[in-house]
């Protein structure tokens, strides 16, 4: 499928997802969109992610195949690279923490530049890393800020986060950086996808769809907060009802809210069945989460099985005469 068709398909899909709650709420299906769908989505999310991780975990790791990105541990007079070539679990944990929190491998990124000659250069390329960091961390902050809707009293940590996030102290309601950063991050990732020809070439509908979906979620969120205000007291009544398992559906919350909630639900439900499970998968990656110590400690393959080999005896049987003639030692003399 070519890029424009993939993009159009994903846009239309998100468009339909926006319309569904619009129509549904107009038809009075508020408890369906306000209660049933969110519960289903959250259930799907947890069951799906757990099932996915279990499915991965059921396949064993027969061989120790870390990608070594630094000096091995050999002599005490050669400094080994604890992070990039860990030999024990401590090193692995550090390596993983840096991968997950700082996207360290992505930070290595470079860009190949091909000139006539030929001459090839490898230029620094940190934009993808920066974009990914902005996108993921703003997503995280936005998500955590939403805890205010699901707890009473609201934890002081959430207040702290809100304070930091809104440090600019402009506007009323106060402007949060994270919401805009999320939109900017998604926009960057999308623009990257359509402006870099190679990236455009490899992109599937399932690469555009989550970007559009998250963009729509963030956009409806921002709209609700700053422009088309919804009745926040009623919203909290609804979300607290969900959180305490005593769902209530107050009257008069704007349909914008239902669109927002529905899109979030779709994201949750979609998560385990899509590339978004990379969040869980990164922890299981055998090229990153194993120490490079298979010469020091024997790694066990649970399905190791005996194989047919050509034994020395068979070999000597074939070549005995020639071996004797050449003065090579043999096991059997005739």
């Amino acid at each position, binding site marked *: 499928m070519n890029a424009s068709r993939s993009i159009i398909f994903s846009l239309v899909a998100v468009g339909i997802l926006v319309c569904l709650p619009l129509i549904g709420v107009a038809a009075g299906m508020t408890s369906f969109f306000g209660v049933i769908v969110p519960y289903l989505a959250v259930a799907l999310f947890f069951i799906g992610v757990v099932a996915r991780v279990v499915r991965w975990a059921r396949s064993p790791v027969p061989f120790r195949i870390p990608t070594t990105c630094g000096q091995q*541990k050999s002599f005490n007079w050669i400094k080994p690279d604890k992070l990039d070539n860990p030999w024990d679990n401590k090193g692995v944990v550090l390596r993983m923490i840096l991968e997950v929190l700082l996207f360290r491998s992505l930070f290595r990124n470079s860009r190949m530049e091909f000139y006539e000659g030929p001459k090839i250069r*490898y230029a620094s390329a940190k934009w993808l890393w920066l974009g990914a960091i902005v996108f993921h961390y703003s997503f995280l902050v936005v998500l955590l800020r939403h805890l205010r809707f699901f707890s009473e009293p609201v934890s002081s940590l959430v207040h702290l986060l809100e304070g930091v996030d809104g440090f600019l102290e402009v506007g009323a309601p106060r402007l949060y950086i994270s919401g805009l950063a999320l939109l900017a991050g998604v926009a960057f990732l999308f623009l990257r996808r359509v402006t870099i020809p190679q990236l455009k070439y490899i992109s599937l509908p399932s690469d555009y769809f989550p970007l559009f979906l998250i963009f729509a979620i963030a956009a409806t969120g921002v709209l609700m907060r700053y422009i088309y205000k919804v009745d926040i007291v009623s919203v909290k009544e609804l979300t607290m009802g969900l959180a305490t398992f005593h769902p209530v559906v107050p009257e008069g919350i704007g349909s914008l809210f239902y669109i927002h909630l529905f899109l979030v639900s779709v994201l949750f439900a979609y998560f385990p069945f899509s590339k978004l499970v990379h969040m869980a998968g990164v922890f299981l990656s055998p090229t990153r989460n194993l120490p490079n110590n298979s010469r020091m400690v024997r790694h066990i393959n649970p399905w190791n099985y005996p194989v047919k080999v050509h034994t020395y005896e068979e070999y000597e049987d074939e*070549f005995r005469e020639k071996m004797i003639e050449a003065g090579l030692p043999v096991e059997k003399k005739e």
Partner: protein
Amino acid sequence: MAQVPKADELAKVSHRPPETPWTETPVEFRPGTFCYGAKPKNLEVVGLPNPREWNPADEDWKLPDNWKDITLNGMKDRLDKFRSFKLFMDICVRCGACADKCHYYIGSGDPKNMPVLRAELIRSVYRKYFTGSGKIFSKYAGARALTERVLKEWFYYYYQCTECRRCSVFCPYGIDTAEVTMMARELLNELGCGIDWIAGPVANCYMNGNHLGIQPHAFKDMIEFFVDEIEEVTGVRVEPTFNRKGAEVLFITPSGDVFADPGTYTLMGYMMLFHEIGLDYTWSTYASEGGNFGLFTSHEMMKRLNAKMYAEAKRLGVKWILGGECGHMWRVINQYMDTMNGPADFLEVPKSPITGTVFENAKSTKMVHIAEFTADLIRHGKIKLDPSRNDNKIVTFHDSCNTSRAMGIFEEPRYILKHVCNHFYDMPEGTIREKTFCCGSGSGLNTDEYMEMRMRGGLPRANAVRYVHEKHGVNMLACICAIDRAVLPPLMNYWVPGVDVTGLHELVGNALVMTGEKKRTTDLRYEPLPGMEDEEDDDV
């Protein structure tokens, strides 16, 4: 065999993807860009399926009737056995960080050589048959059916990946396309669709102990030839032994060192070093191959071929094993051998008889890398070196893919280099160590009918060599891999004429001051030593 285009022709690479989406761009079997199919006799020797005469460029591949079932069952089996495979099928976000990291993509511009697309070739089939979304949404979920066209694409592109793992260094999730390639090649081999340049060495190695099928007496002869050569150069007669029980150490190196220049000079270097320090070691004619083309066939074949090392060490009753300079051999030893064929509890934890150093890092496999062994000797001042004998060589070092990204042996060879030669310059950061570029011919693709792709894939490596060639006058490319020694000379000839290729221990052999040696006038290649050019003339 196809003529390789001239370098300035080949250098015109466009990285702009074609108009047609990749799923609708069929593969074209153009001579010079693919390897010959596995011959039936080689498959028969090791009992691999579907032996027949076939040519990848033919329309009819003579596949078994149930080839699709075999392949899908094979996929399922491997998804259940390898977490790596399953995970790598699921979590790629197509961020493209790996895309321009592959030497074949850089040198060919073919988008399916971007690691991410290479993996998508099989991932798309995975989605179709093994995921719910793929079954329901089909191509909208990036899924596609397994057809003969897809299979041919697999063959073409999974034998255009050298399993170098460079892509996995940059992937945020460590997705290793080499691992995906290994799975794909296993599947292709279940249909008899491997390449002959791998199947041949596998069959030879299985029956005769080494890739060329050198028989025991000939193996001994060939090594003894180099004993004479060493005597010619140094006046010292070294005395290798073969299949000797009770030796302390079993030495195994790729057989390439025994039969092809410039590997043979490295072989001479090993033997001179062992003689000088009085190492109690033996060769084996049965385990006469360090390399393992099973790694490029299937995990099972890798195990079948590797088994000889421990079996022979046990039969001969040695204490530990010393391994020569080789890339993929060391991937097998470091990441697979002990798991597959261990535990080696009949051996002892390796200890250098010269320095007393215990190789704790090899305490389970009981196998030591020669660069570790020699670096330890130098560190303890146990050998006398005259690096000025290599003064006419301005040296740079090529980190082999496997020893870099599947082991991490970076400092040992450099430490040795700095003691055996006076002029050493590394290539630019980003092209060495964990980011090193492949020679372009690894993983069993070092065959002549594939020369165009080899030159393309080797371009990034050659480009970095040219940089130090122009900047520092580098004229010698050192390496610790037998495939490198075989394939870098034509690569250098093609892209950077004026740069020669050497093994690490050839330089050691040149610099090594041996007890009782005559006044040396030439290096191991019979080229005059620096300052000896005139004396050489006198002799003639």
